[in-house]
């Protein structure tokens, strides 16, 4: 399969300062790819180079197999995007704005424009001036113009910015639909890590201009979570319970407070062990209230863990 976006050994300098260090990645049709990084890490710079806003200094970028350096118009025909804020012509109506982009890309029927307007939920307001739109509405306009020409690669820089929770869910559904049903490659950058976790199939983390790694969301979470599952037990006598569970290593169990203990057990035979533990406690006369699983680490924690090496200063 041809990668929708193929970045190869990309370097970028602003003056003498190197902003991007040897970035290489591939994204494919049918996936939502999350591009994560703290402020100033180089997410937007990478996106801007890919859509032709910044000059390509070193390396190559192919969009659907077409080089942006050699065949700019061919490559850009397959890209739709929002970079930074969705700035539209405020003095024109929404529909007039969309017609502008339709004309620039060519071959877009009025019916397609109406279809997109409906898809982003702006049907009732599309004839109003964009200057009167809220940020959320403008964000929807941004998505509308980006998908107007059915691009193979959709790049959205912080698309959930300014959307209400219902709007975020809608957008998530739209993007997932585009990727999984219409086989578009969607690249999303965002600071909302929990949001990314729900939306993305794969995630690339960029820190200080270096790509730290590309993994599926599950891979990333399980990799950092290790081989154990954790549970919190509510028991009548914490100390007796800890003593009783002698087959669990000392560092895998601890007393949280006078009512709760936390244990970690290998995932391999998690169920068997759990039954065994509850049996032992009850049969030894210790009363057992609840057994609650401790939630796995979220992408947020993984992200912070991965990026903390950079310190709190923006690079």
């Amino acid at each position, binding site marked *: 399969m041809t990668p929708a976006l193929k970045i190869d050994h990309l370097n970028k300098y602003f003056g003498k300062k190197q902003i991007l260090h040897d970035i290489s990645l591939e994204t494919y049709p049918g996936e939502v790819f999350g591009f994560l990084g703290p402020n100033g890490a180089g997410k937007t710079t990478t996106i*801007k180079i890919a*859509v*032709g*806003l*910044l*000059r390509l200094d070193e390396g190559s970028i192919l969009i659907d197999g077409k080089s942006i350096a050699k065949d*700019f*118009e*061919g*490559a*850009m*025909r397959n*890209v*739709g*995007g929002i*970079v*930074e*804020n*969705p*700035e*539209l*012509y*405020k*003095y*024109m109506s929404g529909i*007039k704005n969309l*017609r*502008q*982009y339709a*004309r*620039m*890309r*060519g071959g877009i029927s009025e019916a397609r424009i109406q279809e997109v307007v409906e898809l982003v939920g702006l049907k009732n307001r599309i004839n109003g001036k964009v200057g009167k739109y809220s940020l959320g509405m403008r964000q929807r306009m*941004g998505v509308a*113009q980006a998908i107007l020409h059915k691009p193979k690669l959709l790049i959205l820089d912080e698309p959930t910015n300014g959307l209400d929770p219902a709007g975020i869910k809608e957008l998530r559904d739209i993007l997932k639909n585009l990727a999984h049903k219409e086989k578009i490659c969607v690249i999303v950058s965002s600071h909302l890590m929990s949001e990314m976790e729900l939306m993305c199939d794969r995630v690339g983390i960029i820190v200080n201009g270096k790509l730290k790694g590309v993994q599926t969301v599950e891979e990333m979470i399980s990799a950092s979570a290790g081989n154990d599952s954790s549970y919190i037990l509510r028991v009548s006598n914490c100390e007796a319970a800890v003593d009783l569970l002698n087959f669990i290593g000392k560092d895998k169990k601890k007393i949280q407070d006078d009512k709760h203990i936390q244990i970690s057990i290998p995932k391999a035979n998690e169920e068997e062990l759990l039954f065994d533990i509850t049996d032992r406690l009850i049969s030894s006369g210790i009363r057992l209230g609840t057994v609650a699983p401790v939630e796995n680490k979220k992408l947020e924690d993984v992200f912070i863990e991965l990026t903390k090496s950079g310190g709190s200063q923006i690079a």
Partner: protein
Amino acid sequence: MRKFINLVKNEYTKMFSKVSTWVLIGMMLIVSVGCSVLALIGEHTVNTYLGGRTDSECVEYYKSEIDYLKEVKTENWEQEAEKYQYKLDNKIYEDDWRNEACYLYFDSKNDTSVPQDIINEMDNGIKNNDWKKFFESALSLSDRLSEADKNIYRYCIDNNVSPSSDNWKYSVVSSLENAKASLAEMDNAKENGGEVDTLQYEELSKEVQLYQYRLDKNVSYDISENYSWMETSKFDFWNVFGSSTAVVSIIGVIIIIISGGIVSSEFSTGTIKFLLINPVKRWKILASKYFTSISFGYVLIFAAYLITMLATMVMFGADNLSASYLSISGDTVTSISGFLYVFLQFMLSSVEMIVMATLAFAISSLARSSALAIGVSVMAYVGGNTIVLFLQQLNFDWGRYLIFSNLSLANTLSGSTGFAGQTIMFNLVVIAVHMVVFILTAWDGFIRREV
């Protein structure tokens, strides 16, 4: 090409969606119509000031002159008084060929050597308002008539041209013969070793050529004769319409404002990003913006041409529409239609507009500041002539290479250049060099810059 048309269509859509564009167009309309309205008001003021005597004023004047002569009794007062009485009796007022005829008639009448039957013929001619009879009898006293008058009378009789003041053939033949007579006088003076004003001599020979051409080719109205109402104090359709080229300078400012904002506004509003994330190369976007502002300038100029034409027609009447503009180069007289001539004047004035709009476009693209682009360019557009004048006063000859000294193509064509010996080619080369610099600057600012 299709893509380029779409880009231009986009630019026009954006431009016409802005309220400011409509305000500017409104200003242009006001100025276009306002020029002829002002001329109409001006005409009334000037005419009441300079206008001749009406018929009733003439009657009053003749009567008062007669009373005065009777009272003062100067030498030959009776003859003078008789002349006024004669005019009064025969209702001879201003703008009448008989006014002039009276002088000849009375001169002859008081000369005993003139045969009585000729005097009677003349008297009859005047009394019956029969110019043919009068001219014929006047021609028979050949020694009393100047060569010019003889020629005029003969021409009128031969071609049946009545000598009324509103007959163009009569006024052209009069001017022609008078100019010829002045030339002959100068020739005479030259032969006798006198000094002759060569500039005046040339002017007169040109006039003779033009008048002769008009009689030969039947050109009833020559715009070049009274193109500017400032010279003739007479307003008509052609000189008011002709001076409406001033509208182009208003359009120039409008186009500078549009060119100065068309690139930088995309940056200041952030819309540049959505504009560039498109399968269109940047130079095409830049070219479409440049094309839009310049083409809009010409749309406005065409509109202004039509509007001022119609407004002037409404206010000054649609007479002499077939008028021509005559010009001389060497020995040949060329004639173009008046409408074409005024149109060419509009086009020549547009050169300055294009150059300054391009300057605004370049600054707009380089500095991304509309205010800077518009400010600098409008200053250059308005103040350029002042700078040139200043340099001329100080005799700085290098001023000829400045762009400002080379923008008035109409002046160069008519021979009145700011610096001696500037040719139209020189103008065009200086303009071309500046345009290339401006366009390369705009190019560099837009194509190579990172967004």
